[in-house]
């Protein structure tokens, strides 16, 4: 019996009573917790190491600077410059919408929140938005951007609005990122004790000035954390990219206007590129998919490290009270 869970006893130096004296069911539970915890670490390590190894094996610098091209062999199909740029453009565009809107909603929910009914509705709406499948949002976007009034934002062919463009995809992706920004910002604002607000009112600042000058700067780490988490969701989404961005591998500008034409046209992102090049996709070139997955994984890792950094720095920062 004692051999079943050898480690736990040593792991609890703080308190007396080693697990050897516990009932067998308790020891079994603790053993299971250790096992699953270590298994989880092992799976995580396996996934990360697998992609790092495969990625380094297949990633060539020229993949990053050449565009996808039609072809059958690996040497012909080029790299993934456009999908990479697409990911960056789409991430920037959706965050440009999601962060201001998200912060605005969070401020309203936490600082104003009247009438209470609307606040409750808004709260559940944001929560519901977080649970909506992105494929449903993508289909919604298809309706929204094919109606006449919004048709100018996307490409048209022979008078038919296709509803596929960077604008359309970014608009729907910002809804994917929005709940994360709202939740995190709101948490940050609520963590600020009320006497801070009262101190600011006492020196004659209005509520909105207090929010802008005192509360938001104090909640900045939360805003950044939420934005980064949202960005992670946005660049990892595939369904919206396939439906609303077209998944055309290269940029297909709508017209020759420098920037607007590009953004009104279709394109692709790394996720779409991986989907296309996976064995189940039309491209079926796993080595390219691995390389793209490696780059995407690096981005996700960078975002995570960034979040970690921000969280850690904010823990050292001011403590109210």
């Amino acid at each position, binding site marked *: 019996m004692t051999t079943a869970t050898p480690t736990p006893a040593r792991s609890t130096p703080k308190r007396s009573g080693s697990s050897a004296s516990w009932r067998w069911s*308790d020891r079994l539970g603790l053993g299971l917790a250790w096992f699953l915890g270590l298994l989880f670490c092992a799976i*995580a390590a396996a996934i990360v190491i697998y992609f790092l190894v495969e990625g380094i094996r297949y990633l060539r610098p020229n993949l990053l600077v050449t565009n996808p091209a039609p072809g059958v062999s690996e040497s012909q199909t080029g790299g993934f410059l456009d999908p990479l740029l697409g990911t960056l453009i789409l991430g920037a565009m959706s965050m440009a919408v999601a962060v201001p809107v998200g912060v605005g909603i969070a401020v309203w929910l936490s600082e104003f929140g009247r009438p209470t009914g609307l606040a409750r509705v808004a709260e559940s709406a944001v929560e*519901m938005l977080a649970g909506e499948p992105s494929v449903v949002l993508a289909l919604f976007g298809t309706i929204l951007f094919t109606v006449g009034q919004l048709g100018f934002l996307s490409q048209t062919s022979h008078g038919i609005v296709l509803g596929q463009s960077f604008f359309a995809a970014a608009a729907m992706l910002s809804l994917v990122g929005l709940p994360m920004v709202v939740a995190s910002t709101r948490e940050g604002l609520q963590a600020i004790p009320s006497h801070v607000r009262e101190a600011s009112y006492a020196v004659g600042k209005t509520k909105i000035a207090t929010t802008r000058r005192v509360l938001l700067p104090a909640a900045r780490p939360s805003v950044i954390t939420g934005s980064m988490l949202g960005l992670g969701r946005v660049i990892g989404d595939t369904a919206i990219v396939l439906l609303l961005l077209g998944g055309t591998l290269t940029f297909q500008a709508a017209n020759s206007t420098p920037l607007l034409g590009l953004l009104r046209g279709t394109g692709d992102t790394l*996720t779409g590129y991986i989907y296309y090049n996976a064995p*189940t996709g039309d491209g079926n070139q796993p080595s390219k*998919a691995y390389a793209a997955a490696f780059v995407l994984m690096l981005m996700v890792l960078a975002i995570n490290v960034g979040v*970690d950094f921000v969280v850690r720095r904010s823990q050292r920062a001011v403590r109210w009270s």
Partner: protein
Amino acid sequence: MDRDAYLDHDPDAGFLEPDRRLSQDQRAELGLGALVCVVVGLLVALFVFVLREAWPSFAHNGLAWFGGGGSVDQQLQAISTSGDLKHAPVYTFHAWPLIWSTIVITIGAVAIAFVSSLFIAVFMVEFAPPWLRRILEPVVRLLASVPSVIYGLAAVLVLVPFIGNHLITQNEKASVTPTIQLSGSSLLAAIVVLTVMIAPIMIAVFADGLRSVPRGWLEGSLALGINRWRTFWKVGVRTARPVFVAGTVLATARALGEAVMVSMVSGGVGFAPNPVDGLIFFFEPSRPLAATIIAFTEELSSPPMKHTLYAIAAVLLFSSAMLSVIGWAAKQPMRRYGLVP
């Protein structure tokens, strides 16, 4: 002060106020309130538009939409081609195989993920040595943010061939050959990958809930001589129960709506795996609802197909909205204790 001013601002009382210009605060409040209304309106529009597009499919099939009968793939084929022809569009669609596949995959993944996440969260919050905790926390966050298509890629290239070559015997493959092919893309692959995908989300939420259990409650139990495992299990886990429901609901919604990854590993056949087949059940291919939308996006231009796909989306939308309501309701007791902001 300004709050009262705002209260007085409704049409009945507002005219009595001496200064009827809006203050800076009121303008900000109205502006932000309008922003909130826009987002709420977007969500309402989402429901209205999707249901409106979905209506023809439901109207033609009635409750039989959710039932079984015939081959789903043939029905989808007929629906799709009828859009191009001049005669009446076909709407006959019996989605049961897709719904069944969604149910099995979602429940399978959520059940496995729930049990393991519970233990891992307890381990992470209470029993792991500090150095391991420092590793586990970022790892959970990392895995929760890995894009699903990357999980799909890994599964297609590693897990699916492994299942196809090692777990399924030739005899088993031969036994079902006329109906379906067992290639490794299966319920099992989908469940395993989905479990790995949603477990980190669950662990993160569970751990947050367990951390918010007041220290004093646990110490009270420890002081009575109850051992640490029992204390944490009976006091900590029990207090955080609403959070487990909330986290499970969140993860279920993600599992339900996961389209791309599942479409890569589930086999892409509109077939209802049959539990009577015994162990082969888990090796049988299928295609859940969300993956069906991804598989047929190119046929959105055919009107009856479009309505059918929106009907599928409406089912997903409705299910995840229900889940979100359950999650909200589950969090209420926790809020009463003041454990959740």
